[in-house]
């Protein structure tokens, strides 16, 4: 079986460096899609993706291309998600390829995600094809950026292709380069089936439809298959390749990229990185690199209106069908009532899920402060993992609390070195390494507690570098720290939704800020409201909201009644949107505000 006509590759880039536009041009140049079809395709894709200019879901597409040598090639472009939250997914997509087109913006140059993705691609043993994009833009510095890439990759200057995806410049050259440099796949067509799952879509009629890359053997309808991780068995209904839609095929053989339909119920049954094998050969060695994806960030989601609890549960169930990395469990909060503790891959994932719940399912949600998973070592030596600060056991029984650290890569213009150092220092980051990419740009490596990143680190980083810094991170390890639980008390009652686990050195400032913030956000009530921050039994900050003094419409005669009554009705509605905690009404914004507490 000849497979030297197949090229499997992906495009990796920092966000906004033009990956999607470049992909569009390749599809156009190979006649895979017309411009019109492309527009429709774009319209079909997730609204949120388009708005945020990020790729949340992975895509793969097959292109047929007749090269300069007159031969016909099958090109499989495997798209990768463009965000740090999805590093593992990126690595699985890369594992399905032999080559990677590394796109760098000719004015911005190499950024943090460029490097992270490049390193992932190199780890996966991919052939790298460097491309400078947006060379037509006024700020482009192709010479300078080319030198940067030459330094970075140790390649020759003429190996760096100059492209303007927007103008369609350099596209034919890129296609030829892919044919020339990306190695054809290798695989044994006679060996038992091994196919890598690198993505999965949810189809409301067909269930979960995994995207796969066949490594050895072949897969065809009627075959019984099983998955390395779940060992559940399925009969294949259909296989095919991915174009604008699905194109049915007789079979997929080594090197092929396509899809499998096998009446699989949920996307979570088809885990990225898992191996599909022949059910009759369960002993087939699995492909390396599979990991169970673990949520890194947790947050409680509660319906603002308690009556929406069931709707929220149904909505989460539905989302879970198509989003395997979303985890949730019911939880109860004394302040917020019934809701769910959800686990996310990262902050973006969290925001995307929240927004989808609110937009697609029309829910009104209150979100608690995001937190990480803590590992508790108890005095009796046992270990406990908690995803919710309120689950922290009694202090006396705790020997140590460990928190996750990440390795953070930050790149910024050298004039902001001081700002970045200060920010990371404030966030308990530990310096590892600093390196000048060129005289004007610096790369930092830090080890930072993830908890310090999940709040608003990225926003702060951006604002302290006028938007120039880029950030990427990956999980490193758990480390013990002097962590304490900080509670916020309203009229003496701790409000569980406000509790956080925090480093002792930062607790005082956080408690003070939080108390001040709540003082601003809790409107005057009929009674004075005491706001306190406490560690254990010790009060470390206090504020108070004085009792409401005045809420009256002075003048009320015949012509005023209707209008004033409407204001009262509004007040009544507003009251319904408040969460009643004891005798105190807390507005939704107070729960959101916790997200903005800090420096």
């Amino acid at each position, binding site marked *: 079986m000849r497979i030297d006509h197949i090229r499997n590759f992906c495009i990796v880039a920092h966000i906004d460096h033009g990956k999607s536009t470049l992909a569009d041009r390749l599809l156009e140049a190979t006649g895979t899609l017309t411009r019109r079809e492309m527009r429709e395709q774009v319209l079909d894709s997730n609204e949120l993706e388009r708005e945020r200019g990020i790729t949340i879901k992975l895509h793969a597409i097959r292109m047929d291309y007749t090269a300069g040598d007159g031969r016909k090639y099958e090109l499989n472009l495997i798209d990768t998600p463009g965000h740090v939250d999805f590093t593992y997914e990126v690595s699985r997509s890369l594992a399905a390829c032999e080559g990677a087109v590394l796109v760098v913006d000719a004015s911005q140059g190499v950024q943090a995600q460029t490097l992270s993705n490049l390193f992932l691609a190199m780890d996966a043993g991919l052939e790298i094809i460097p491309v400078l994009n947006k060379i037509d833009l006024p700020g482009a510095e192709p010479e300078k950026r080319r030198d940067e890439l030459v330094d970075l990759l140790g390649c020759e200057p003429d190996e760096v292709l100059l492209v303007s995806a927007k103008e369609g410049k350099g596209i034919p050259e890129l296609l030829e380069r892919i044919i020339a440099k990306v190695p054809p796949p290798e695989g044994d067509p006679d060996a038992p089936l091994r196919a890598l799952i690198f993505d999965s879509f949810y189809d409301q009629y067909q269930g979960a439809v995994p995207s796969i890359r066949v490594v050895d053997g072949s897969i065809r309808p009627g075959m019984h298959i099983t998955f390395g991780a779940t060992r559940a068995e399925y009969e294949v209904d259909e296989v095919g390749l991915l174009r604008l839609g699905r194109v049915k095929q007789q079979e997929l053989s080594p090197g092929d990229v396509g899809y499998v339909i096998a009446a699989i119920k949920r996307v979570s049954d088809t885990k990225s990185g898992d191996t599909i094998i022949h059910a009759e050969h369960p002993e087939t060695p699995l492909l390396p690199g599979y990991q169970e994806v673990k949520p890194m960030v947790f947050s409680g989601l509660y319906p603002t209106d308690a009556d929406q609890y069931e709707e929220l549960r149904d909505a989460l169930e539905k989302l879970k069908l198509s989003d395997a990395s979303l985890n949730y469990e019911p939880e109860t909060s004394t302040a917020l009532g019934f809701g769910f503790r959800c686990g996310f891959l990262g902050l973006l994932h969290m925001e995307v899920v929240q927004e989808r719940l609110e937009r697609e399912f029309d829910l009104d949600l209150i979100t608690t402060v995001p937190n990480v998973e803590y590992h508790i070592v108890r005095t009796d030596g046992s270990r406990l993992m908690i995803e919710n600060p309120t689950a922290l056991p009694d202090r006396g029984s705790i020997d140590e609390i460990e928190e996750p650290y990440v390795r953070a890569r930050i790149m910024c213009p050298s004039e902001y070195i001081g700002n970045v150092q200060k920010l990371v220092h404030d966030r308990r980051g530990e310096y590892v390494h600093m390196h000048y990419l060129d005289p004007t740009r610096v790369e930092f490596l830090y080890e930072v507690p993830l908890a310090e990143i999940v709040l608003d680190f990225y926003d702060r980083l951006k604002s302290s570098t006028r938007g120039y810094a880029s950030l990427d991170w990956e999980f490193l390890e758990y480390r013990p720290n002097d962590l304490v639980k900080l509670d916020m008390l309203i009229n003496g009652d701790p409000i569980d939704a406000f509790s956080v686990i925090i480093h002792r050195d930062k607790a005082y400032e956080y408690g003070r800020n939080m108390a001040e913030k709540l003082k601003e956000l809790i409107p005057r009530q009929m009674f004075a409201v005491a706001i306190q921050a406490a560690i254990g039994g010790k009060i470390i900050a206090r504020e108070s909201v004085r009792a409401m*003094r005045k*809420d009256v*419409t002075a*003048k*009320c*005669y015949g012509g005023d009644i209707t209008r004033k*009554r409407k204001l*009262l009705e509004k007040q*009544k509605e507003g009251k319904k949107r408040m969460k009643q905690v004891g005798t105190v009404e807390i507005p939704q914004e107070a729960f959101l505000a916790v997200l903005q507490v800090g420096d």
Partner: protein
Amino acid sequence: MIPRHLYVHAPFCARRCSYCDFAVDVAAEPPVEPWAEAVAGELGRVRREEGWSAPLELDTLYVGGGTPSLLGPEAMARLRAGLEGGVDLNGVEEFTAEANPESFTAEVAAGWRRAGVNRLSFGAQTFHAPSLRWMGRLHGPDGPGRAVERARAAGYDNLGLDLIFALPPMLGRDLADDLDRVLALEPEHVSVYGLTVEKGTPLSRWVAERRVELPDEDRYGEEYLLVADRLTAAGYLHYEVSNFALPGRESRHNGAYWRGVPYLGLGNGAHSYVPPRRWWNRRDWSAYRSAVATGEAPRESEEEVSGEAEALERIWLDLRTRSGIALSGLSEPQGALVRTWERHGWAEAAEAAGTLRLTAEGWLLLDRLAVELEGAAEMVARGGPKAADSGLHGAGKRTEETR
């Protein structure tokens, strides 16, 4: 039900005050004749529409503004003539007209008296010259005194003064001093209003531009209580949130609004209430006038007040007055709620009358209390769990009683 209370709007002012958002038409020489004609025309139209064939027997008539005194000495007689046949004024106990000190001349006093006006309400606002100027008032500190003198001389024995409080502290107005000056004039009635920022007024623009800072809630509360203390000590009954009167001199006309009995309003921007309907006229004087003249309905819109809206309105209006709310009408959670009010000094029960009324402290929180009280009734109606888990509202035992 046929209204026994008539309000007539006289929209003309020589100048618009900085805080005013009323239906007002600025005119140096107000068109008395067209106004009286339009009002009479509307009365005829309403009677036809509502099928009120007999003349409306009125208990009260109130001419408000605007600045009715700007219309001159003959205006009330002219108005009466226009209303003749449509209303029966023989039984009118209270015929009030509003007046501003600067246009309330001896001639106006006498002319109105002859036309049957027996109660006057003067817009005094303050006796502090800089504050008067800031508000855009056309009278000086001595204006109200002179107006009262003229009224007394013409034989009026039922006078009211309007006073404003919660003025921006920067004006340096001394409220206690103003209260002394009011009391010195010995009016039968005093209305006191906190300055309110209404949309579209010069005041709202000044506030938005931070050129004016309004007093905070605490100062508002202090001033309100100061007014209540002084006037009560001087023998006035605090009979509604903003109204004080010597015993027996409460405004009967305004009482109709709070009691929820039917009333008819004529003129631009005027509201009428014939339960369950409430309707209101176009605000703009010329639009109103030409509508009436061409036989179109001058109404802007109408609503039906029923269900929750009616309940909320009723509670709110009941709580506004010294008569208060009937204890027998309260559900059990509502009863528990008002007991907490009593403990806080916001309300007191009048055991003999079987009513509960708010104190001055309570009136300061009126809107909020009304919403809470109505909410407590709703919880029973829904029999829901919310009553049970709300500490404020007690155990919320289920009862069949609803309003």
